[in-house]
């Protein structure tokens, strides 16, 4: 519970930012050497990933003898081999992952927005105390909850269903996003509701017709982060999904790597590439919201 001033300090103030950038750009001398350093560093960092992408298109025997990024010999069979290497075709795991992701995104969008609106815009008894409780849950490691959660869901015969993964999102347990919405709603001017209240609008209408449309950027940030984190999530899926036909993409990939041990890197890389592609696409189209999101909340 670091104080709010830290977070508010992080909120970007666009007007001053532009001014600052202009004055700085004006007095900066030649910086080509900086670009050389940055590009070199970027290349070193991304080289392994690029190499993996290119290896997915190389025949197995060539992967280690050919360290270049452009395959000397193209081979697309890795994808077919990887796709069908496990019990079910890889598409089955993708569908499972997409169900979990879709449920989580919808859940977080609804529940965290509602809670965030209440904490940010409504006056009620004990608001600060409840808000502190919410922020405390942000720091709680999942490991202190996971055993009883497992017992609870297993008694309800819900292991190997997607319920244990999606239900918590419908109940706003991702405190990070509640906080993100609180930060956003707090930044909106009070006149918004006051005008609507004079027109006789109730809370439901204010929330649905005024707040939500204005909150599109924050909603996008929530959706994108939820997508990426759920798509990548391993620990909870490992616990709650044990049957092969219920496995999601990360679990399938792990089964794959353990089964092959390292004999067929080509198809392994091909499937790794398939699992990274959605993240990359989301990043490509949503990076504006990602950057804004981490800058606003100060958490990755």
């Amino acid at each position, binding site marked *: 519970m670091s104080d709010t001033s830290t977070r508010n300090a992080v909120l970007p103030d666009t007007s001053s930012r532009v001014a600052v950038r202009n004055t700085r750009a004006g007095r900066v001398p030649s910086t080509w050497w900086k670009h050389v350093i940055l590009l070199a560093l*970027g290349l070193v*960092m991304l080289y392994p*990933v690029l190499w993996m992408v290119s290896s997915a298109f190389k025949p197995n025997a060539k992967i*280690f003898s050919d360290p270049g990024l452009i395959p000397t010999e193209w081979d697309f069979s890795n994808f077919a081999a990887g796709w069908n290497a496990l019990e079910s075709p890889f598409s089955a795991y993708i569908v499972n992952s997409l169900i979990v992701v879709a449920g989580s995104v919808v859940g977080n969008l609804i529940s965290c927005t509602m809670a965030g609106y209440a904490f940010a815009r409504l006056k*009620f008894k004990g608001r600060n105390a409840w808000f502190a409780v919410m922020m405390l849950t942000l720091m709680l490691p999942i*490991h202190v909850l996971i*055993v009883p959660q497992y017992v609870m869901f297993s008694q309800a015969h819900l292991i190997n269903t997607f319920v244990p993964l999606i239900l918590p999102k419908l109940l706003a347990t991702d405190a990070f996003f509640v906080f993100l919405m609180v930060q956003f709603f707090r930044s909106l001017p009070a006149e918004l509701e006051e005008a609507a209240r004079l027109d006789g609008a109730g809370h439901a209408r204010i929330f649905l017709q005024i707040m939500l449309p204005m909150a599109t950027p924050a909603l996008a940030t929530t959706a994108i982060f939820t997508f990426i984190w759920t798509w990548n999530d391993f620990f909870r899926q490992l616990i709650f999904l044990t049957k092969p036909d219920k496995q999601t993409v990360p679990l399938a990939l792990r089964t794959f790597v353990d089964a092959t041990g390292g004999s067929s890197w080509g198809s392994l890389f091909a499937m790794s590439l398939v699992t990274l592609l959605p993240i990359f696409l989301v990043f490509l189209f949503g*990076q504006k919201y990602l950057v804004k999101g981490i800058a606003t909340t100060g958490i990755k």
Partner: protein
Amino acid sequence: MMASDGSTSVRLRPSATAHKRRGRADGRAAAVFLLPWFIGLVVITIGPLIASLYLSFTDFDLLTSPNWIGFENYLELFQDSRWLKSLKVTFIYVITAVPLQLGVALALAIFLDKGLRGLNFYRSLFYLPSLLGGSVAIAVLWRQIFGKDGLINGFLAVFGIEGPGWINNPDTSLLTLIALAAWMFGSPMVIFLAGLRQIPDMYYEAAALDGAGRWRQFRSITFPMLTPIVFFNVVLQIIEAFQSFTQAFVVSGGTGGPADSTLFYTLYLYQKGFGSLDMGYASAMAWVLLLIIAVFTAINFATSKHWVFYDE
């Protein structure tokens, strides 16, 4: 959370009535808007939190009903050489990976900040790994890169050096995971960049007039102004690093090996709780982890007044 719902029989002055009605309506609306969150708090968070505290004092194994055994699990921890090892591995990881990651992030943020052209491009470039790095796919890649015949050794071979099997050697396996954490410096970097933007330019102008050099400006302006954000990142990254799981799990094939050199705390917890079904023991482990994280966070906050600078 909820305001009481009593009908107002006494007539108040009009404005006060309106004010009161509004307050009450807010209370009721808040109850509705917070209902899902509140159910989640009770059922998904606080209920299990209390249950796991109870289970930590039992011999619960999922199949038979739990028996109360007092502090036995907690006492056993300190005689469990694997638990002690997992604690050591995790501590080493936290105290190396967090400063390394934040140090690189801060250095890059400062390097990028001075009105460089293409800033957005570089920011995206360096941010991407922190999105990809949490995935199983990158862990798989890491297993290859640092393998005996991996990319790193292929590179070293160019210079005639024969590298070790980084992943299979207990002396170097943890280093590969620390390297992975450092590789994901992008998200704290973005936060630092946002923080740097908030420092008014006039501070630097005044300092330059006083003849302060670059290093002096960093020490007297940039770093003090950034300390709240550095602090915030330190707290959160430590909490997160203590909970690292996926990468060690995938890279070691679920064992924490070789020779338990990558046996992260949570990995051992998983093995105990969900491998051998010692769920009481695993619960005790989880509570000790919670205490460790709480202590580290408390230390962070306690020391913060000596080095965190708040403007205002």
